[in-house]
């Protein structure tokens, strides 16, 4: 549920990083926070368990400049990936305007990716939103592990498993090392703002 403030000429929109547990959602935000530290005026908010897993969400507000005379402020969130936190994931999705699905490239995580995408579609439907219509970008994370000889799912398999019907933009990335993290974020921001464009007069 984006907010357009015609008095301040400001747009606020919510982008949520969704995906299976330990897939790298928080690492994406940490990389963005580190990379754009000078442009982010607040601390990154994280609500974690003692085991350093996301308990509720991470939150990072980022100002991306001006489009059509409006100051654009994007609120980046992650959801907790662990299966047991389904109700928490649903809460974080409330009012979402754009989604990055962070898939885990590890071969052993193939099933978890598919189940997480199914839960995303179900949770969006609970807010009367369709996964087919909301701005969505896939990120196939942990591609750097290929260099270490760890078995990864080929990008073509990930595309087939997750993106054959949705046909959303996708990026092979490494949230830890950085490749395509910023590109993923830029793409979802462009798509999200584009979905609001007709209201920015």
């Amino acid at each position, binding site marked *: *549920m*984006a*907010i*357009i*403030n*015609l*008095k*301040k000429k400001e747009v*606020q*929109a*919510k982008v949520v990083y969704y995906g299976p547990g330990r897939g790298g959602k928080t690492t994406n935000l940490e990389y963005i926070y580190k990379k754009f530290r000078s442009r982010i005026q*607040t*601390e990154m*908010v994280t*609500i974690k368990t003692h085991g350093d897993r996301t308990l*509720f*969400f991470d*939150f990072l*507000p980022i100002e991306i400049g001006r489009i059509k005379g409006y100051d654009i*402020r994007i*609120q980046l*969130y992650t959801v907790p990936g662990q299966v047991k936190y389904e*109700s*928490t994931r649903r*809460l*974080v999705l*409330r*009012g*979402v*305007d754009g989604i990055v699905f962070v898939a885990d490239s590890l071969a052993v995580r193939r099933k978890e990716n598919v189940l997480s995408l199914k839960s995303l579609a179900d949770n969006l439907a609970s807010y*009367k*939103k*369709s996964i087919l*219509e*909301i701005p969505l970008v896939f990120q196939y994370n942990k591609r750097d592990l290929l260099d270490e000889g760890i078995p990864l799912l080929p990008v073509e398999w990930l595309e087939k498993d997750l993106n054959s019907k949705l046909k959303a933009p996708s990026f092979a990335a490494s949230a830890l090392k950085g490749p395509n993290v910023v590109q993923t974020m830029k793409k979802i921001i462009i798509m999200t703002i584009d*979905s*609001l464009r*007709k*209201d920015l*007069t």
Partner: protein
Amino acid sequence: MDKQYISDTDGQRTYIFTPAQLSRIEAVLAEDLLDVGVHSVTLIDMAGNIISTMDNGENRHDLYSLAALAAGNFGAVSTMAGLIGEEEFSLLFHKGKKENIHFSKVTDEFLLITIFGKEVSLGFLRLKVAEATEKLVIALKPGS
């Protein structure tokens, strides 16, 4: 400016606030709450976006993080209420040494966060918040 208030495209809902509407909202926040001595008051949506915020000029809180956490907290507490068979909890309040924080649902989509100190009693604050909420419900209506 005469512009539609809610825009629905492909299931996406966008709230558009006109300058006149925001001025009315700010007047309610200032006159009903700031003038009785609260430190800051912020109207947010349940997604954690800020609609309007006013303060006494002395607050330096990170309001965007506060709004995100307040929306999450409110959602979590509402879910807890449901789990024990309550529709909702009527009082959402955290007491600190110097600052207190009070949450109040305005409509299903909007939440009012008030930060206040020792100078204002909780009872009086709740009364003023209730009055402000009635006015905000009107100010938030489409086309108001």
